[in-house]
């Protein structure tokens, strides 16, 4: 029994020495990542755990949360508008992310191909991205205003009866995609830099091999800028999942009630909930209807979906890079 104890004691002390030895580098690593880790715990970990807890409570922001079990989660299946809001957000994501990437990439390629005045055009195309979203949206809605807007007036000169754009449930979301394309400058600048980074000798080698323009784009440009494309896709999806300001302002302006006494959220979704996005509905349930417990359910679902898509995309990206190496 004593031998056993001694052997165990030796093992323990050896383990302790080993642990002490490996603790030092760990401590150094922890010291470096400590501030970031702290930030993650305070600003991500804590709110996330709190959101899970609040989702099982009746919470008003004013009183302590009251435990209601699964009531908020059950209401998810009774909520008449959550499905519409989720579908709108999915629609916008499916249309806006590819449209912005293709638009930005094409613009960047055109700019890089230009011989003269490249900087001037680059500035010109980038400018809309600098406009504050609220101002830009108001301007865009007025630009597309039926009957009196400049675009509609020009269309009528050509004998075309333009659509009602932001006033038509069928056209409101496409109009938002157009708005996002107009302000594509932020992404365009990243693509301009990525395209300039493609080694010229690769294009020369491809030319010697007899590759045409499409083949050069497909087999040289695209693989080289793939990390930027993945970045643009992930940030685009996350941005669309949080899409709020432009849809809210567009609905307010198009419904002829820019500054109503009831606040901008009174016109959310106009026309016929076609511009009601998931985050807008989440906001409405929380801040307008005072159902913060249920709003936390919606927030958690949004987080889960965004996180899943991001993880899948990053994994696929890793698989690509491994294949390349």
């Amino acid at each position: 029994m004593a031998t056993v104890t001694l052997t165990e004691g030796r093992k323990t002390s050896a383990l302790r020495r080993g642990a002490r030895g490996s603790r030092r580098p760990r401590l150094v690593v922890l010291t470096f990542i400590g501030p970031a880790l702290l930030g993650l715990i305070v600003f991500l970990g804590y709110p996330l755990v709190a959101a899970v807890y609040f989702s099982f409570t009746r919470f008003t922001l004013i009183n302590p949360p009251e435990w209601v079990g699964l009531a908020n989660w059950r209401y998810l299946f009774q909520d008449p508008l959550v499905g519409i809001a989720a579908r709108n957000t999915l629609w916008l994501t499916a249309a806006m992310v590819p449209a912005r990437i293709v638009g930005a990439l094409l613009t960047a390629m055109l700019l890089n191909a230009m011989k003269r005045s490249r900087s001037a055009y680059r500035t010109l195309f980038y400018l809309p991205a600098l406009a504050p979203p609220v101002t830009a949206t108001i301007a865009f809605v007025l630009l597309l205003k039926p009957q009196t807007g400049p675009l509609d007036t020009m269309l009528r000169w050509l004998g075309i009866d333009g659509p009602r754009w932001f006033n038509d449930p069928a056209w409101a979301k496409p109009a938002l995609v157009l708005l996002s394309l107009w302000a594509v400058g932020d992404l365009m600048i990243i693509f301009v830099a990525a395209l300039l980074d493609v080694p010229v000798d690769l294009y020369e080698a491809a030319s010697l091999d007899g590759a045409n323009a499409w083949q050069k784009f497909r087999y040289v440009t695209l693989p080289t800028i793939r990390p930027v494309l993945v970045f643009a896709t992930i940030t685009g999806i996350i941005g669309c999942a949080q899409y709020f300001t432009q849809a809210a302002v567009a609905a307010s302006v198009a419904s002829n009630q820019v500054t109503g006494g009831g606040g901008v959220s009174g016109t959310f979704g106009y026309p016929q909930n076609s511009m009601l996005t998931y985050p807008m509905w989440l906001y409405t349930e929380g801040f307008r209807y005072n159902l913060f417990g249920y709003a936390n359910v919606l927030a958690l679902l949004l987080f889960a979906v965004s996180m899943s898509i991001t993880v899948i995309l990053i994994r696929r990206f890793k698989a690509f890079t491994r294949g390349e190496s």
Partner: protein
Amino acid sequence: MRRTRILAGLAALLAVTAACTPAPEPKPIATPGVEPSGEIELWHFFTDREAKAIDGIIADFQAKYPKVKVTVKGGQDDSKVVQAIGAGTGPDVAISYSTDIVGKFCATGGWVDLTPYVQRDGVDLKVMPEVVRSYTEFRGKRCAMPFLADAYGFYFNKKMLADAGIANPPKTLDELTEAAKKLTVRKPDGTIERAGFLPLFGFYENSPSHLGPMVGAQWLKPDGTSAIGGDPQWQALLKWQKDLVDWYGYDKLEKFRASLGDEWSADNAFQKGQIAMAVDGEWRLAFLKDQAPNVEYGVSPLPTADASRYGSGYISGNVIGVSRTAKNPEAAWALVKYLTLDQGAQVKLSNGIRNVPTLTSALTAPDLQVDDNFKVFLSIFAHAQSGTTPPSAVGPAYQETFGTFVDAWQSGQKKDLPAGLSEVDKQINDVIKLAG
């Protein structure tokens, strides 16, 4: 071991989360006759001209109560007030633009129940009309007081009516339909150049809540559940509205509406003569004076389905309350009392902001500036059958759920009215149940 640590960590976080949320702290009220003193903070939503009117009345209050210092913060939003109270800070007194906030603040105790103060000071609340008293209390708690009111009436362009041979503004829904058709001008291609009356819900002030009093429709039952599906008046209103929409053509109306200017700008369609008749609040008088002084217009009560209801309308207004987190509730109540129950203050505020005073005595005060048009709103306000939207714990959720349905109804997407309204009832009752 690791799993245990993670679980322990999560448990600690949950404990912190639960502990971090503020708990209500009831404050005892002072004995009768105590003189209010100290500093208080007032948050309101007014800006520009209206904010100046508030500053003026606060100066009067401070002259009357020299021991109270009031800090005023304008341009505030309801959600900011909620968040501030939830965080244990915020104003002593807050003014909200919407009666929809009353249910929320009463149910949660965000604004304190003023009944002890009212009883201690012997205030008779019957100095205000019943409708005003009803939208400032919830489930027996008087957590708000009315801070001026809005009354909704019917604006008409006198010249257009005269040109169309209409001697008087419509008094019934049938007369409104007839006048709307007479006053509408179409282009050769059938599109609308001028609408006699634009009947779309969602256009400017055409909400179900504002038009509901035309038929005397009810929103909620006494037990707080939805009354919409069981009230035939809603069906009557919606059928009348849909008939008129169909006469114009829904698409044509939407196209016309899309071309109109913003409600609150000088491009307002009534002010520009693009529509001949409109439902609007008393504040439009000030807008017309400022932005369209040449328009010859008149004001009347809303046309009604039943002649006995004529003269009534929709009443709403701003509300004021004392925060649970008030540092100086006694001085806060003194301010609320002064702003809502002092006739002189009410008249001055009404003259400054051009809203309807909520004290019955102030309606006939000699120094209240009234013209013939404003008098119409005063009479609508005082009418026994004027209605409002009742407070609810879910704020405007019940109105907006109904709004979603009427959007689908007027566009023709929903055709079965009774079934649709029953579904609305269910949706409203579900959300009210969730709020508790």
